[in-house]
């Protein structure tokens, strides 16, 4: 059944945080080996509502607050996963990755390989990403590229509640480590309002969305916009404004960076000839360069023009006006689409 049909079949729509929690709760009911740990995930319910209400149902044995030591508790999750459990460990802000990066990069991602396949690490590492709410340089990064760069783990970035639930079911059931990055601005919490897009119809029954399948969120013939996370909604807003001027943009939501569905991107570029890649991560050595390189490798002749829209290589500023300037918005995306069409 097509995804849009399933979204429509329910009278109920959920915020992204509620959709994520629903998937986690279902998996915890089905499997006693699934548990969740992180800073402020139990009594507080996750500072971005990623675990709201779970403590009441599952108690402190399975929803665990941990001391502020990312190395200790991410390491504990790796060990528990290797011993046969299915931990979910939350890194409160992705910016804190440096503290526990040895556990993430050298243990979580590599232990299956290092052990010759004798252990698997079926854990999920969740983390909040993104800016646009004035939290300065150490709490506003997106860092998709950092996690997608090193082999050994899968990297998931949902943009809607429907996708968030299906991808979380897939992440918990996966026998390999999965990094699940949720954008704060998409969660739908009262003090950090979301755009309209991420709240979608969400069926009550569990369902999975396979990794490595990008989703065409809007079909169009004139240019391909490839993006993920919050910027799916900004790209859709840009596409709406471009449509008023007769420009028909296609918007592709990657949904997972590892594995990466480059075929969907190549097919779209073969149709449109024009590619704009949008990322809330830094411009250099990131998603924008990677997507363009992969399209060029096998489809150079299809490419008439490319442009990338990303955060310049500077720390995210605290000042509202400056943060707004460096993080791409719908107008920046629309301008890039106009640019790639300027040689027509």
């Amino acid at each position, binding site marked *: 059944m097509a995804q849009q049909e399933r979204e429509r079949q329910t*009278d*109920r*729509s*959920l*915020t992204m945080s*509620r959709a994520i929690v629903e998937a986690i709760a279902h998996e915890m009911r089905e499997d006693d080996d699934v548990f969740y740990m992180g800073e402020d995930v139990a009594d507080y319910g996750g500072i971005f509502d990623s675990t709201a209400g779970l403590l009441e149902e599952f108690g402190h044995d399975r929803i665990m607050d941990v001391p502020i030591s990312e190395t200790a508790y991410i390491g504990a999750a790796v060990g528990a996963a290797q011993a046969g459990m299915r931990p979910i460990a939350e890194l409160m802000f992705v910016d804190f990755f440096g503290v526990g990066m040895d556990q993430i990069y050298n243990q979580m991602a590599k232990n299956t390989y290092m052990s010759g396949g004798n252990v698997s690490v079926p854990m999920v590492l969740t983390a909040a990403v993104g800016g646009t709410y004035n939290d300065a340089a150490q709490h506003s990064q997106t860092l998709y590229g950092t996690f997608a760069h090193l082999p050994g783990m899968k990297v998931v970035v949902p943009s809607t509640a429907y996708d968030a639930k299906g991808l979380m079911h897939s992440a918990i059931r996966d026998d390999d480590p999965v990094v699940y990055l949720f954008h704060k601005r998409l969660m*739908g*919490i*009262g*003090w950090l*309002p979301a755009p309209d897009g991420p*709240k979608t119809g969400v069926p009550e029954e569990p369902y999975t969305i396979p990794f490595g399948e990008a989703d065409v969120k809007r079909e169009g013939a004139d240019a391909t916009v490839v993006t993920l996370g919050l910027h799916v909604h900004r790209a859709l807003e840009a596409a709406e404004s471009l449509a008023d001027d007769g420009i028909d943009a296609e918007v592709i939501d990657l949904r997972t960076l590892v594995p990466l569905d480059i075929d969907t991107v190549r097919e779209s570029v073969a149709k449109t000839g024009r590619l704009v890649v949008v990322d809330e991560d830094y411009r250099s050595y990131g998603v924008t360069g990677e997507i363009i390189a992969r399209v060029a490798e096998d489809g150079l002749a299809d490419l008439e023009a490319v442009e990338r829209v990303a955060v310049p290589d500077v720390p995210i500023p605290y000042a509202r006006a400056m943060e707004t300037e460096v993080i791409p918005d719908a107008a920046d995306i629309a301008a890039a689409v106009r640019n790639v069409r300027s040689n027509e």
Partner: protein
Amino acid sequence: MSSDDDRVAVTTADAWPEDADEDAGVVVNWFMSEGGHLEDGDSICEFQVEKVSVDVPAPVTGTLDEIVLEEDDEFERGDTLAWIRSD
């Protein structure tokens, strides 16, 4: 036809947090659209008072007939959020 006699009001007073001092709130999220079917006890929307988010359960099983207070609307304690036509 749509007299209020066969409709049940969802009021903000029913879900008001007991320890709140303020008498004003704001609607944060609706989880149902008008015309949608809901079960008694389903969370139908969420409002915020004094930085606390409150889920509003459906008081009866039925159809969401009318949303009175939309997202971002501010209201006073006791105002009607919506009307449900019970099954």
